């Protein structure tokens, strides 16, 4: 049984208030899972569990202020086997499971944990094990700085080595500056052959009480944590679907002459401007003209007002390794097709190299997505709020079409728009798309492309 006490979060702090219990009696807890929140003067903190187990008893009510060191909670560990196994590998300290009993997260127990410093090392749990047993750790204590973050900064190499060898970094004493784990530390563990044993022993402690996807993932499933950019996209998409009245309209566009034009000029264009000419800049130009003609589509809803933008900043959806990002062609209404092409090529390249500046993904007044290269012939995109429309330019395909009551083969493309019915109605959406269609079918881009 482990007793959890009011931690001392600073020398001069003598008491703390239990703000909220995050676990109830009978709940199971993981190591490092938050147990409760406390408040002291201007600092609130979560207090994590030093051990995995089951909450046996809660000793203090919410809202109570108690002195540092007061016992607050009792946790039963399942047979003490799990935590011992977890720390047993490299540190080989049988005392580790019981160690936190004395002073979780306290001043005195902290130092050694810094020397271990790793993502997996909960400060409250790890400390006493190496202090009790391991010589390298004790050495490191002496060099630990006032604050420990440098001990927690791991080089990519150390991280990769640990991952490749299934090492639990919590079990590796750091001998580098400030207790940092160095490559040599990791190599020492690998060569000592303890790697596999440690990993094998550690696994059971994580698995049983993991509340996240682990239980539903069967053999043959791969569990990948949601990246922050994935989460940002998810939240943005969900907020849009929940916050807009989305409708969708599509037109068919005959782009036969554009296909022929591109074939004719593409080599010369590449040679002259150093970039490939695609259809996207032409679509952007045709859309910019339609946005200027129908400013309610180039707008946003702002409370009681519709704000029409007198300029066009065109967001271009770009997929890259981390997900999806929308760099913005600023002032697209002042550019010719070459200018748009250059801008898109530059933004897309830098997006994929993770080099966009913050202001380059801000301020779009309308957005275009271009799933065509992957073969889609019709898409229903989600509106990039606060825009009121997003235009999808899909794949150009040769189709039989009726022209003057005869069947002909033409290069056709579907251009569609998801639009926010709170601001736009169907007639406007259709007129807008018809304008885009008319522009693409009637404009001669040859001159604009310098051909």
């Amino acid at each position, binding site marked *: 049984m482990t007793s959890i006490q009011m*931690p001392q*979060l*600073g*020398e001069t*702090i003598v008491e703390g208030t239990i703000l909220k219990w995050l676990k109830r009696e009978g709940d199971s807890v993981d190591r490092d899972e*938050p147990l409760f*929140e406390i*408040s002291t*003067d*201007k*600092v*609130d*903190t*979560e*207090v*994590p569990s030093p051990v995995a187990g089951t909450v046996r008893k809660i000793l203090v009510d919410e809202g109570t202020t108690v002195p540092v060191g007061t016992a607050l909670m009792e946790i039963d560990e399942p047979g003490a086997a799990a935590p011992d196994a977890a720390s047993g590998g490299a540190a080989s300290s049988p005392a580790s499971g019981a160690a936190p009993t004395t002073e979780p997260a306290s*001043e005195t127990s*902290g*130092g050694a*944990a*810094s020397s271990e*410093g790793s*993502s997996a*090392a909960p*400060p409250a749990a*790890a400390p006493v094990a190496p202090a009790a047993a391991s010589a390298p750790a004790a050495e490191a204590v002496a060099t*630990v700085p*006032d*604050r*420990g*973050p*440098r*001990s*927690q*900064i*791991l080089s990519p190499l150390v991280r990769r080595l640990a991952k490749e060898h299934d090492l639990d970094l919590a079990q590796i004493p750091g001998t580098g500056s400030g207790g940092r784990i160095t490559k040599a530390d990791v190599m020492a563990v690998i060569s000592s052959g303890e790697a596999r044993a440690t990993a094998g022993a550690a696994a059971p402690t994580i698995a049983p009480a993991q509340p996240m996807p682990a239980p539903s993932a069967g053999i043959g499933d791969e569990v990948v944590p949601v990246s*922050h*950019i994935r989460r*940002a996209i998810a939240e*943005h*998409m969900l907020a849009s679907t929940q916050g807009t009245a989305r409708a969708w309209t599509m037109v068919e566009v005959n782009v036969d002459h554009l296909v022929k034009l591109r074939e004719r000029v593409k080599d010369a264009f590449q040679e002259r401007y150093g970039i490939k000419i695609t259809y996207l800049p032409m679509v952007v130009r045709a859309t910019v003209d339609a946005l200027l003609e129908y400013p309610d589509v180039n707008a946003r809803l702002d409370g009681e007002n519709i704000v029409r933008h007198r300029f066009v900043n065109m*967001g271009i*959806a770009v997929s890259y390794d*981390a*997900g999806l*990002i*929308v760099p913005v062609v600023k002032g697209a209404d002042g550019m010719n097709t070459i200018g748009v092409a250059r801008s898109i090529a530059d933004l897309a390249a830098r997006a994929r190299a*993770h080099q*966009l*500046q*913050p*202001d380059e*993904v*801000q301020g779009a007044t309308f*957005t275009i997505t271009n799933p065509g290269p992957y073969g889609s012939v019709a898409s229903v*995109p989600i509106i990039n*709020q*606060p*825009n009121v429309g*997003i235009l999808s330019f899909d794949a150009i395909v040769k189709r039989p079409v009726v022209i003057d009551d005869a069947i002909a083969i033409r290069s056709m493309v579907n251009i569609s728009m998801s639009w926010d019915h709170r601001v736009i109605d169907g007639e406007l959406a259709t007129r807008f798309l018809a304008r885009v269609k008319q522009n693409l079918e009637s404009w001669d881009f040859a001159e604009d492309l310098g051909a």
Partner: protein
Amino acid sequence: MPVPAWLIRPGTVPYDVANAAMHRLAELRLDDEIPDTVILLEHPPVFTAGRRAKVDELLWSPEEVEARGGLVRMIDRGGSFTYHGPGQVVGYPILGLGSRPDAVDYLRRLEEAVIRICADVGVASERRADVQTGVWVGDDKICAIGVRLMRARVTLHGFALNCETDLSWFRGIVACGLPEHGPTSLSDQLGRRVSVADVLPLAERHLSEVFDLSFQPAPGEFVSPFQVADAV
């Protein structure tokens, strides 16, 4: 030797966007996926209430706050009500305090950095241990501080230093739960304009010195969550 750290200066960011992005960074810091990171930004007008705030410390009705273009947010930091708005430098250090989290030491360092910033522009400020955490000019508070520790070891939230803040907003709350103390700003103290742009480089330098950090710009993917419309 200073520790490599990231600096994020995204400009003016709506409170909810910044708050969510900050929490995500703290989770990454907790997992050692990122180094110590400091965010320096401005917010549009918003009243935020820490866990210790009392409802009657918001003096304006929610409708009144909204009519003035402000928001009210109940959040997870320590302390009571405060105000953020244009003309104020808000700093959110996301720092790993290591396994010996000394929250008091952290607060004192935050105050120290702010005191040095004030001194650089010519305002003598001080701690008021007899009153409350924060940075004061006499009886008036120039910088509010409120912090949360994630898992007792990674810092969240931070400080708000008034440069040329419209102080009339503070009439909407009992700031920091102290009815007898008022707010002040650098511009207010000096009788000349001290802008956020003036203070940002000072904040960067003194936070770097006080916390022994060597700042580099954060990679774009960690900055983009602070942008409002960043994905389709």
